[in-house]
């Protein structure tokens, strides 16, 4: 059951340990953090610092070795695969570095895909996607397949797909890493606007300085642990 008074994300002493050739790698160590609804938070750190793994743990794409995770008040760490799928569908939107749109679907179909799974009526889907496409400068490109869109356009479609189903939070893993300066700036503007005007909670894993600058909260990770947690003006 979703509780809107609960924070978007809460983790308690979360660890993720991978075994690699008889050696244990502590990808995430003792992470305890709370991210409230409406936050615009960046998880920053160098490659291998554990930020992507922490996003995957929060998104239920991988399970913690120990510790507990709650998303919108629901404990993720004990859920079955079916429950995790349902949680991802209803509460979490994902934006990936490589856009990851489904190549067989048009921009509109990609964007409305989570709502289709949720069983949202076609009229409501069209209206919501239409509004978001207008906000993100994608109007008129609804019928294009991903292969006919630029990287920046594909990532905007991915952002629309992530926010359209009104999730409790959007997890974005290096969303600007494959974009040029102009495209990433425009994409950031879109996400800031969606956060400000629609109250969408964003959590980024990034090492892009521009994303860090625009984030209101910056959580730095080093060697799998949180090194600092600052709120920026």
């Amino acid at each position, binding site marked *: 059951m979703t509780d809107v008074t609960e924070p978007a994300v809460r983790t308690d002493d979360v660890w993720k340990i991978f075994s690699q050739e008889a050696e244990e790698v502590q990808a995430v160590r003792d992470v305890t953090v709370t991210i409230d609804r409406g936050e615009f938070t960046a998880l920053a750190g160098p490659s291998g610092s554990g930020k992507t*793994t922490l996003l995957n743990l929060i998104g239920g*794409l991988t399970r913690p070795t120990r510790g507990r995770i709650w998303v919108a008040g629901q404990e993720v760490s004990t859920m079955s695969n079916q429950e995790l*799928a349902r949680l991802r569908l209803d509460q979490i939107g994902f934006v*990936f570095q490589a856009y990851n749109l*489904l*190549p*067989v679907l048009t921009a509109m179909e990609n964007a409305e895909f989570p709502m289709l799974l949720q069983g949202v009526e076609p009229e409501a889907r069209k209206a919501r996607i239409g509004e978001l496409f207008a906000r993100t400068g994608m109007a008129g490109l609804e019928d294009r397949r991903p292969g006919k869109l630029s990287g920046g356009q594909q990532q905007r479609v991915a952002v629309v797909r992530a926010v359209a189903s009104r999730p409790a939070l959007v997890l974005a893993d290096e969303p600007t890493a494959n974009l040029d300066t102009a495209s990433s700036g425009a994409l950031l503007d879109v996400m800031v606007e969606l956060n400000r005007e629609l109250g969408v909670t964003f959590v980024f894993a990034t090492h892009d300085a521009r994303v860090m600058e625009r984030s209101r909260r910056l959580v730095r990770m080093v060697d799998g642990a949180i090194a600092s947690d600052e709120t920026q003006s």
Partner: protein
Amino acid sequence: MTKHLRVIVGLALRNLQRHLRRTLLTASAMIAGSMLLIFSLSLGDGTHESWIDSGVRMGSGHVTVESPAFRTTQNIDARLSTAARQVAELALQNPLLSGDVSAVSSRMMVTGLASSAAGARPVKIMGVDPRSEAAFTTLNAQVVEGRYLEPDDRLAAFVGKQLVDSLDLRLGSRLVLNAQDVDNDIGGQLVRVVGIFQSGVPEIDQSLVHIPLSTAGEFLGSRDDVTTIGVLLNDSAAVPRVAQALRQALADPVAAGQVTVLNWREAMPELAAAVALDDFGNYLVFGILFIIIGFGIVNTVLMSVLHRHREFGVLQALGLTPGETGAVVLVEGLVMTAVSGLVGVALGLLCTWHFFGEGLDFTNLMGEEMTFSGVVIDPVIIPLFRVTRVVHVLLFILSIGAVSSVYPAIRAASIDVPTAMKFER
């Protein structure tokens, strides 16, 4: 899963369209296999039906009513009672069965001796009603001299060519038939040859003698009694139904062990074994063919899965369960095989009907006729269409598609999402 079924099917269809050339190449193998399968099965069924038809016409029909002892003793004592004969013949006139029945022949069959001035030969004497038997047997169409028996004939005999030669007979010749009568005495009857046949089956041509049933009844003292009632059907597929109806009608004498109802498989086990063996050979060849096609499907679908790891990761990240992700792959395989199967079967039927509807002539390969186990094999094979065969073929192809898609589907369902998202294209 049912909640997302439309999405799953929609994605599967889009994915099939996405790599249209690959889909068409795999589908073409399925279509060719299905065409070949339906053609071969139609031809096989036509062949078997021809064998069965020839066998049952030469023998005792698709369904035979006789005394259980008759098959082993061939003795006149093991004849059917008049009551049993009447019940059986009445049951066969029932409108529910009469549509399936092509001909009924009640026969008095005994072994005996045929003698002429030139010598004597063991023969099978068959007392028949000329009109009923003419509709039953093919011998009346294999007359080489004279004619078949007619209803008004009394002391007439219709004999095989080899018997005629060995007893130095000709049309109009007299011969004496001797056999054990109902009183266990040896009865004798003088008859004249009115017709000579050549069936192509040596054991028939050298030993079978048809005489009127009334003549047999007189000289054997059996009157209207018969040893066998042979039933010829329009389609061998009706055998179980007709046999069951006769068993029900004759329930009392069957229960008392006085009467048995045999289907052609029981009455002619050698022919049944030949049909089963031929079927087995066909199934084996097609089993191997479709295993090869199945591996082709596994290869195609699996390659497609391996190239789409990232997509499956995205689907699971967006809210599909692992099972639903696997279902996308399974549906792809099923849709491809179902459509290919339908197209293949339709083309197979069309080709068979268009090119071979009049029959396939193997005369150049096997000569005019060939025989085995008392069955004449017609060199012209007419394919036989059966709806059940079409259904079987479609189910078979669908199951090949399902089985071939299971492993790729499991692979798609069991991906590790974070790893899949890192997957390099």
